[in-house]
């Protein structure tokens, strides 16, 4: 459903020459530099940028929610009142009633020890009414954001809500005071993809219905493209490009925008994603010329010396010495190398692996939660095998079981002639061949050791060589992983996220394992760095003819990386095939929903019907399935072959 929009001329907010500087221990950090934009009544304005680009700080400056050490200059006109000139007391009267905010972390944004009603009441309090009225209005607000049985649910606590529901509560709180502007700071980043689109659609409709203008902050280019009318692209504290969203996404004028778009993995294209070389500048670094010049493929001498001018082209603004009027210089199409998978050489075989966790239900009943339910697969030499699924589906639990960090309650994992968790199993022998890359590189690295020492350590542990030789090899490995030798003697805290993840990959690969298990290695990273790490793992796997198990919640990353894919839902594989088959011919309704949700904004509709009675043996996807029939409520389908190397667990595919 698309609602036609006409852009009213009424300017509701005008940010002019906004600068924000944080004073920290004698050092000034420029977080926002000379940012200007207008917001019109009822429109959705997007701000795209990577971590630390200043997009959140810009928005916090509007309602002055920045810490005391922030120095704000410029002007922020809301209906001709300069918000920066308001007193501390009077600015509070704008918050909520005129300008509301929705933040990223849905559960963390609610007070854990207070009921949902308490939250809504705090928002409604300024209308000065009685308890009964607050309750009935809260009920209405929760109804508007589609929370089932709001009357009883509002007496529940945040921890009794799922992430999606908690985010709906936040939206209800923000909408409760009829604001004119809604600032949404990455409102759906913490949610699963299928849920993301649904919540954003609801938000969009609610804004249209109530004529609320929205500033939508995101790092996700495709979301911004689908949701917003106009967009600003931020890089290193300033806006580099601004204009109509379709224009910018199809004909980027700033090299950074172009590079950002190219770095996003695209489904169906088996090209290597084009990473932006290097890292974003740190917040306290100031560059003489254009901020993007050090990473820009188009940079000329003047770019390194002078700040770029602001060029207006019709409705568009771009800050660049040499905007890309002639289109993007086509980078050499780096198609993914077709890799040789040795079909007969199975390195690792998992059969009916089941992992249970004990849980304590309310009322003190001990129970088990099955995180992984009878999963089987075979990993062949040279294969990159992807496992995709939403958070909590059991993909990480499975990965940990594969390296022996979890003990399966049933089933068998065999690799290199050994069976895990049996007597005679040699763990050191096994870890020499199977290595693991964790999601959070900072947590996985020793904070007190230099990365060179850490990368050398596995060689010493496995007594492959002596310490001196190990350091030499570590040096080579880090270089191979694309790190500058000047960084080798740093500790993890002094490295960027991308550099840390590179070190982690180097540490895993130094003992030349045959299988690398990567557990969401890029999910905490910005698009440009994500592309670098993806390319690195892919290249190294190819060079060494290594097998990889690659876990991600992001289907586009999986499509770009892997040869074969398994889709996991509530502990089971629901579909498994090679990448192309899965993309063009997905059989399982869940896979179809996942693919739909990344492709388009409005096509997929997730059905969450009110509780219909179905047995505990029902298909796990029953509640959300648009194709369900009566048999689905009674038994759970098994994975069956439905084509050449294509298996699906659904009765109706």
């Amino acid at each position, binding site marked *: 459903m698309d609602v036609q929009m006409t852009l009213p001329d009424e300017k509701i907010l005008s940010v002019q020459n906004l600068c924000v500087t944080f004073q920290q221990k004698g050092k000034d950090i420029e977080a926002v530099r000379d940012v200007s934009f207008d917001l019109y009544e009822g429109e959705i304005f997007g701000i795209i940028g990577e971590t630390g680009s200043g997009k959140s700080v810009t928005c916090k400056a509007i309602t002055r929610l920045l810490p005391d050490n922030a120095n704000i200059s410029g002007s922020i006109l809301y209906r001709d009142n300069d918000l920066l000139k308001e007193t501390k007391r009077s600015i*509070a009267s704008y918050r909520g009633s005129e300008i509301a905010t929705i933040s990223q972390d849905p559960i963390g944004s609610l007070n*854990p*020890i*207070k009921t949902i009603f308490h939250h809504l009441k705090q928002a409604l309090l300024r209308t000065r009414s009685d308890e009964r009225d607050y309750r009935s209005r809260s009920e209405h607000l929760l109804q508007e954001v589609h929370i089932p049985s709001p009357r009883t649910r509002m007496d529940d606590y945040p921890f009794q809500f799922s992430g999606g529901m908690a985010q709906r509560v936040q939206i209800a709180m923000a909408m409760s005071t009829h604001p004119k502007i809604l600032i949404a700071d990455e409102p759906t980043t913490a949610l699963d993809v299928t849920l993301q689109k649904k919540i954003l659609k609801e938000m969009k409709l609610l804004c249209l219905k109530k004529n609320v203008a929205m500033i939508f902050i995101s790092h996700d280019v495709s979301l911004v493209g689908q949701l917003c009318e106009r967009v600003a692209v931020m890089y290193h504290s300033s806006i580099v490009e601004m204009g109509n969203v379709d224009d910018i996404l199809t004909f980027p004028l700033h090299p950074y925008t172009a590079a950002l778009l190219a770095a996003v993995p695209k489904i169906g294209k088996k090209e290597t994603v084009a990473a932006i070389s290097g890292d974003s500048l740190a917040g306290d670094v100031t560059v003489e010329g254009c901020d993007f010049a050090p990473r820009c493929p188009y940079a000329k001498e003047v770019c390194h010396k002078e700040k770029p001018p602001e060029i207006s082209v019709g409705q568009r603004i771009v800050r660049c010495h040499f905007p890309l009027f002639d289109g993007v210089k086509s980078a050499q199409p780096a198609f993914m190398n077709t890799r040789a998978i040795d079909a007969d050489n199975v390195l690792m075989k998992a059969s009916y692996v089941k992992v249970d966790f004990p849980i304590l239900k*309310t009322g003190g009943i001990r129970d088990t939660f099955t995180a992984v339910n009878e999963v089987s697969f075979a990993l062949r030499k040279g294969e990159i095998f992807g496992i995709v699924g939403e958070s909590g589906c059991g993909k990480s639990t499975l990965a940990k079981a594969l390296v022996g960090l979890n003990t399966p309650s049933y089933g068998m994992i065999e690799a290199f002639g050994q069976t895990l968790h049996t007597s005679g199993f040699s763990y050191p022998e096994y870890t020499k061949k199977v290595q693991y890359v964790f999601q959070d590189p900072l947590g996985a690295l020793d904070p007190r050791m230099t990365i060179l020492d850490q990368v050398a350590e596995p060689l010493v542990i496995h007594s492959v060589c002596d310490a001196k030789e190990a350091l030499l090899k570590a040096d080579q490995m880090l270089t191979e992983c694309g790190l500058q030798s000047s960084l080798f003697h740093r500790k993890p805290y002094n490295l960027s996220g991308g550099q840390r993840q590179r070190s982690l990959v180097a540490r895993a690969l130094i003992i030349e394992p045959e299988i690398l298990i990567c557990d969401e290695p890029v999910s905490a990273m910005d698009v440009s760095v994500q592309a670098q790490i993806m390319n690195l793992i892919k290249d190294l796997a190819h060079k060494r003819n290594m097998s990889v198990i690659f876990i991600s919640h992001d289907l586009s990353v999986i499509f770009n990386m892997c040869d074969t894919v398994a889709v996991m839902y509530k502990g089971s594989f629901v579909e498994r095939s090679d990448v192309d088959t899965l993309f063009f011919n997905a059989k399982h309704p869940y896979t179809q929903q996942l693919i739909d949700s990344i492709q388009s904004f409005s096509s997929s509709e997730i059905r969450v019907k009110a509780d219909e009675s179905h047995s505990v043996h029902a298909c796990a996807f029953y509640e959300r399935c648009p194709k369900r029939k009566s048999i689905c409520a009674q038994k759970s389908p098994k994975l069956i072959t439905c084509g050449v190397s294509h298996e699906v667990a659904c009765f109706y595919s």
Partner: protein
Amino acid sequence: MKLPVSTHDLADRIFRSHRYFWIKLVRAAITSFLILVLSFFMIHSSGNPAQIFLGGEATPEMVAAFNVRWGLDRPLQIQFLSYLQQVAKGDLGNSLLRGEPVIDIFFTHLPATLSLMIPCALISITLGIALGFVAAMKKQTTIDHLMMIGSTIGYSLPNFFFGVLLIFIFSIVLGWLPSSGNETLAHYIMPVLTIVTADIAIFTRFSRSSFIDVYEHPYINNFKALGVSERRILLQEALPNASIALLSISGFYVGSLISGAIVTETIFSWPGIGSLLVSSMKARDFPLVQGLTLILGFSIVGVNLLVDILHGIIDPRIRKGGK
């Protein structure tokens, strides 16, 4: 409302709906029992009472007669059972020296201790939390640094030194304040000051870090963004959350109050439980020491139970078994 069908059903319901509280209660009961067992056997393993009481020259006949007289000839488990029976009746035996019941001696000394410790606790907790809040709000500023330096000094200043210093200045040199006893209000000034100096420091440091922690949570900013006033955010959002952590330390603190500030009471000759404990140990008055140990142990268990229950009331995640 539907009435429960059977008593079993009722019990089941009560248990389920208050599961958390029941578990805490059962644990407290087990701990109390262990205190009983330990105090009994430890005293019994500390030597033969007949030998200690009658001295080295007692004949075997005298010892035997002594044992029969006090029931010490019976098997240990029988002795333990009769001890339990006594304790259940509230009888903790008689003091060897004074001959009075231990429980009576305890209660005659209790008011002095409470009249000193209750004001100390109120001052330390309220002032400590308030100062901690100020320090948290002004964190990493000069005010905060000065407050932290001050609290470090206050905390590390030993009671026996600070108390004596006060006596020296205000009683001996200036002659303004009495140095011992608890008859008038003036008697309270120096002991309270001695205790409070150290305790405020503890609460200031602890509440500072709790408040900093709570104020870093996104929900605080979320309420600010809704236009909720700073005062309301402090009272209705931050304080209840910070109090979860503060409650734990207050529990330890209040639990130790009843034993009094042993050092402070001794310095100022305060006729409270602290001095009583010290003097009974000096005099090897075993029944008194054992009885006091028991009472103090029980009171700490009781306060901890109270803290657990309050935790459950403040924090729904504990009560309802959330994460």
